[in-house]
């Protein structure tokens, strides 16, 4: 559009067919879009990590068969019990711990390793880029699920093994994003200015590249966090993730599958929490992306 139109107006309002009724309403809606999912996540984190340590919750693995198969809203068991007698509610909480731990670890590894590789590939280009890109390509073409299954199958299922297995998936994904973001950045004039002014390679990376791609990486990682949680669920669902009797949303779903027709809530409850958590992560990622205009 013409140079005379202030860009801020075009970006802020572009796309609205009808301007919001009041400026205040628009502000509220925007804030809600960020804080509603963020609030839910904080709630979940608190429930999963803080609550069991502060307030007594039935043991997730030592339920008594006497109480097996209770339906939700039974006294003492809000979500009922599973076929072995464990309290579903506490299994949800402990399962949530696993999901968040795995998600955080895998995302962190992806950012650290993949992000670094991607930045190096994008910044230095040439042979470095060629090598790193080929490696990333192989990892992406490689059915990570096979690797994950193989690791779990071979080394025995455990939370740590799940983290390793899923990192193989997260590193190339983050690497690609970091690389293309760095490439885009490199073309910009201020980068040229930095190089011309004699700033050395590492300093340019740290002071110019990283701060500018952090927003993009962060929003991508939030989406990735959700994907990792789903994948951890998949592995546990297949029996190759967190081993029973420990709680994991995925294994709970697998267990519940057997009585799907009779008592669907054993599938629906962990599914609902899984869904709500991932949706919140996605919504939060979107809201941040909008805020930071990535």
């Amino acid at each position: 559009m013409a140079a005379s139109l202030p860009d801020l107006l075009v970006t802020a309002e572009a796309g609205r067919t009808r301007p919001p009724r009041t400026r205040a309403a628009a502000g509220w809606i925007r804030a809600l879009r960020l804080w509603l999912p963020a609030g839910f996540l904080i709630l979940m984190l608190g429930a999963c990590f803080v609550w069991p340590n502060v307030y007594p919750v039935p043991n997730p693995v030592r339920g008594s068969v006497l109480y097996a198969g209770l339906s939700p809203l039974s006294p003492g068991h809000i979500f009922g019990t599973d076929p072995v007698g464990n309290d579903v509610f506490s299994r949800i909480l402990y399962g949530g711990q696993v999901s968040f731990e795995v998600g955080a670890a895998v995302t962190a590894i992806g950012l650290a390793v993949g992000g670094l590789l991607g930045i190096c590939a994008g910044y230095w280009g040439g042979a470095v880029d060629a090598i790193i890109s080929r490696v990333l390509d192989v990892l992406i073409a490689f059915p990570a699920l096979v690797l994950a299954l193989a690791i779990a199958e071979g080394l025995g299922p455990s939370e740590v093994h799940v983290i390793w297995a899923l990192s193989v998936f997260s590193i190339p994904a983050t690497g690609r994003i970091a690389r293309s973001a760095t490439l885009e950045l490199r073309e910009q004039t201020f980068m040229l200015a930095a190089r011309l002014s004699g700033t050395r390679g590492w300093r340019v990376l740290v002071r110019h590249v990283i701060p500018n791609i952090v927003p993009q990486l962060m929003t991508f990682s939030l989406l990735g966090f959700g994907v990792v949680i789903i994948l951890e669920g998949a592995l546990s669902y297949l029996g190759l993730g967190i081993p029973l009797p420990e709680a994991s949303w995925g294994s709970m779903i697998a267990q519940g599958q057997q009585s799907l027709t009779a008592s669907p809530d054993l599938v629906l409850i962990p599914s609902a929490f899984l869904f709500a958590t991932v949706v919140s992560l996605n919504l939060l990622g979107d809201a941040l992306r909008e805020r930071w205009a990535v």
Partner: protein
Amino acid sequence: MSESLLEVKDLKVTFTGGGRKLRAVDGVSYCAYPGQTLAIVGESGSGKTVSCRAIMGLLPPTAAITGSARFAGIQLIGLTDDQLRRHRGADVAMVFQDPTRSLNPTMRIGPQIAEAVRTHRPVGKPQAREEAVDLLRLVRIPLPERRFMEYPHQLSGGMRQRVMIAIALAGRPRLLIADEATTALDVTTQAQIMELLLELQSDLGMALLLISHDLALAASYADEVIVMYAGKIVEHAPAPRLFSRVRMPYTQALLEAIPRLERPAHSLLPVIGGRPPDLSALPAGCSFAPRCRRAADDCLAAEPPLTEHEPGHRWACWHPVEGGAEGGAA
């Protein structure tokens, strides 16, 4: 004097966003006649482009437009997009600044012109193709049949702009708005395009509206010149009069800032001090006063109205420049 083709009265455009109200165009009135070249000159942010896009309805939905813009008697302000669409291209056409970005990169130029032909007239494809080739010939592109099938990136900047003109002319408009049409071109090409525009205008009897920040360009090619600042018209006169008897200090400053060969080498270019005004927080009084050499107390207190102080010459200033040939025609 023939009937005015475009009559703009008290046009105002306001943008609201981020809690601020921005008055991009603040009461603009003028007339354009068939066969006449009217130049609207101003710096970035003066409102020259916004006012013309408002007439064509090409502004984002967040723009609030009031006032009147009559084309051949038809009121354009307030029409729905659907109604305005009938006028766009057929009555009023526009040529834009950056031909590289203004053409669809994945579509061949021929079909882009043919599309303009078929939009307003029920013409079959083969005939539209013929007309498009004719238009390419009209804008003096060599080997038009071959060029028809080329993509925009295969043409040079000057040729792309000719294609844009061809597109604009496809609907046989009576008013052509050239929005900084030559700004992105080098000087030689600029002259060629301007010559082409003027020739087409006289051949087709169109009214031509030239929008530019280049006062020298306006001087060379326009019949009448309007100078805009901060959304308002500050001076409006026939071109020769404006340049021989400039009144508004802003216009004078613009004229003085044009580099000229007659000046001694290495002399400082007299630029206008200060910064363009913040359109959401305009000062009371004359908008140019903060940067004006001749500003006095009454300039800061009250806004001077645009008045026709001399026949055919309007200006808005409490202390206009006196005297004769200051600035001189370019």
